[in-house]
């Protein structure tokens, strides 16, 4: 098992088992208790589930802050992460049963929705950490991103040198590549990682069509090398973009997870206040 998944299996799935037991107990209590007026958040079991959920949410939020600053070694971080993930998932059961399946357009259901969004984004985070690191190393084929960037720079110099022995039309192809091979950029291009408008790919096609019209054998040799250079550059750029896209996916969920968690805590405060304000 790789290091990336081991936090899920931390100490033989200790936190998984704990959360599963918790869910089971909660489901049994919920099913056994049939109060006057039906099951909802306003019964004693409802208050109990709500209180448990609230404490879990606050503790897990604190865990989230805590584990980033942890210095108690790898196993400590893994333990906290494992607890965070499994107890977080158990909130799906606890929170849903607390509602008694009563939903509406109100601040109470808002809190529930935010909680589900936090859990969903967290689940995506787990998914991302399980899946993307391997895809990233496969994408870069064992090389580092900085090595590839260095190679891109070398290819640029080579392109400039090659154009010295080729007509101006090839210089245009080189310019296309030099000026329009964009890696990174805005939110969506980072997230999408698309290479559809890559300047190097376009330059390669331009150079290739120019090369067909050449007659001088010396120039033809140089042109072939230029096409190969542009082709390599396009490939590296595409891999780097995909690399950034994986990194973006691994980053972006936390930008939902954390602010929505804070929104959730605020809406929980409102929920508790309102429930007891209008008791």
């Amino acid at each position: 098992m790789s290091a990336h998944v081991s936090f899920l299996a931390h100490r033989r799935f200790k936190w998984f088992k704990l959360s599963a037991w918790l869910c089971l107990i909660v489901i049994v209590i919920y099913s056994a208790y049939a109060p006057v007026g039906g099951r909802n958040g306003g019964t004693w079991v409802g208050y109990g589930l709500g209180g448990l959920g609230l404490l879990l949410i606050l503790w897990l939020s604190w865990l989230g802050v805590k584990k980033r600053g942890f210095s108690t070694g790898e196993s400590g971080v893994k333990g906290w992460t494992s607890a965070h993930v499994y107890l977080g998932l158990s909130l799906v059961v606890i929170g849903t049963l607390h509602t008694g399946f009563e939903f509406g357009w109100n601040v109470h259901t808002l809190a529930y929705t935010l909680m589900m969004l936090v859990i969903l984004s967290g689940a995506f985070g787990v998914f991302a950490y399980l899946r993307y690191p391997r895809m990233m190393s496969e994408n870069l084929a064992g090389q580092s991103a900085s090595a590839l960037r260095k190679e891109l720079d070398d290819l640029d110099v080579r392109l400039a040198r090659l154009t010295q022995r080729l007509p101006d039309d090839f210089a245009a192809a080189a310019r296309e590549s030099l000026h329009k091979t964009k890696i990174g950029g805005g939110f969506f291009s980072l997230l999408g990682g698309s290479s559809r408008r890559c300047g190097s790919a376009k330059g390669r096609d331009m150079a290739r069509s120019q090369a067909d019209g050449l007659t001088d054998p010396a120039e033809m040799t140089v042109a072939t090398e230029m096409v190969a250079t542009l082709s390599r550059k396009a490939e590296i750029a595409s891999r780097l973009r995909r690399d950034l896209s994986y990194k973006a996916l691994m980053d972006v969920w936390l930008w939902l997870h954390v602010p929505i968690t804070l929104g959730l805590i605020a809406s929980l405060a409102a929920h508790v206040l309102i429930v007891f304000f209008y008791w």
Partner: protein
Amino acid sequence: MRLSLITIKRRPDSDDVSRRETLLEGSELRVGRGADVDVNLPDVNVAYHHATISEGPGGLVISGVGGELIEVNGKSVESVALTPGTTCRIGMYELTGENAPDHADGAIALQKLDSPVGPGKDAPQRIVETLPSRRRLSWIAVLVVLGLFVAWPLTSILMRGAPDSGAVVVTPMTGSAQATVEAAQFAIENGLAPEATVPNFTPMEASWISGPMSRAHAGLAEDCNACHLRPFEMTTNNSCLACHAEVAQHAEVADHPVMALDNYRCAACHKEHVGGESPIEQASAVCTDCHVDLKTVSEKTDLMNVSDFGANHPQFRPTLVTGVSTDDSGALVPTTERRPLDQPYPLVEKSGLKFPHNVHLNKEGVRGLGRASDKTWDMNCASCHVAQADGMLMRPIEMERDCAYCHELTFQPENIDFVRELPHAKASEVSEIVHDYYAARVLEGGLTVPGAPTSARRRPGAPMTPAERAEGLEWAAAQAELELRAIMDVRLCGDCHVAEASAEPDDRGRTAWKVQGALLQRHWMPKSEFNHEPHFAMDCVSCHEATTSKTSADVLMPEIAICRDCHLGEETSQASASSECLACHQFHIEGYGPMSPAHGEAVKARRTEVERSTVVRTSQ
């Protein structure tokens, strides 16, 4: 021309500058990207042969070739004289004229500028660079939620007042429209500020509602403060009683003090914000909680324990009329008794009515009496028994409507073409009418009845002697008494009632008759409410076995077992008709007085006041 080309290089991160001189010779010197030109500028933005340097009248001149341009001070020009100090740019290269050294005709310094930052080199490489910080987003989320859902509604709520805790406030509710009208009227008449009838609500308060209101309270959905009076206080009974001031007790509190329910909240049983028709709790657990062992709650109770309609509910104990008497004012007074239906002997009712159901339900039709004796009627249960509009009790049987079309009270002495309607339930009037008739006939004369005295048989209008008159009237009185006995005992009254003749004749020598009035039980099981309407698909006789009943003494109420054919109780797993307590019983039972005597009094006072003000207004 000899040109001194000085290539300047700067070392990165250092002020060191190296100058390397190359001497070029020719009348024209080619400048461009090409590998084979004189001044090689390896930059893709430079044309293969971009420009030419030649010697002009005032020094070196550089001119673009084939339309290529040269940049001087930000402007593109076709050619420029590179006098010492003049600088031009081609691509990433800067060419500056210098003073010619001794061994050359001119000098140009060539310097490669820092390569412009490559495309996207400064573009964000991590998605977080394109987003606001998590801290800022978190603050926004917190402030939006607290502002929209707490601060906004809370400020408007806190600005409203609430009545004092414990104040008895009542709004008589007799139909919501009337209540509004009454409230407004009351306010106007008494010079008070009219009560708000518009929603007492700001938009975001809607977001506080934890669940849908029941339909019964839908009108309160936009007025939280109708029930929630003060912050952090559970809804009080006073809020409920403001409208439901007259809601009745569950039992006689004097006998069962526990039933005052002083420490209970209405909301203990009536849950709002869970939708539904009304906040009345249907689950039997609310009732069986106590009724499973009622003695432990109230020692003096004579009610039997119940836990489930199907499994453990006492046999029905209908209230029977066991006798009917007439009080001094002439009103009928029943004696009643509660008896269970599962006695070893049949229950007997004494309603004062003679009525065989089987005769009236004859499948071949029921033959009429008297003038209607040539007709037959197809009678069924509904010929007499019709449920009230609410479907609950049967409307009372009325002789005039339900019986008289066949049981006509007509007095028609034999051989005489004379019909006289007799009044129902007025025995002495009947007696007067019959006596008057015979007396009048004798005084008139011309009677042909066998056995009549000669004075009565005389020619009509012929005078009588006092002796003849006395003889005639004596006969008339005797004849009337005979006729009355037949009417009371056998024919008319006697058809349905028991009549009793007085032992001694009265001072006029007439027998006084007392006909036993009938008092039919209408509500056999007054502690329950049975609705006939939902049972419309059933035959009456499937519960009330009337077809074989020969006497009105039979009690035709069904035993509990008949109900249990469909109402199996709540503990069964089979499909069952509704069996919860409230299907038949009520918690608040009218007749036990209001739950809150203070509110009961207040609503009465208020109503009187409203009535008085209405009267005043009408008279004005």
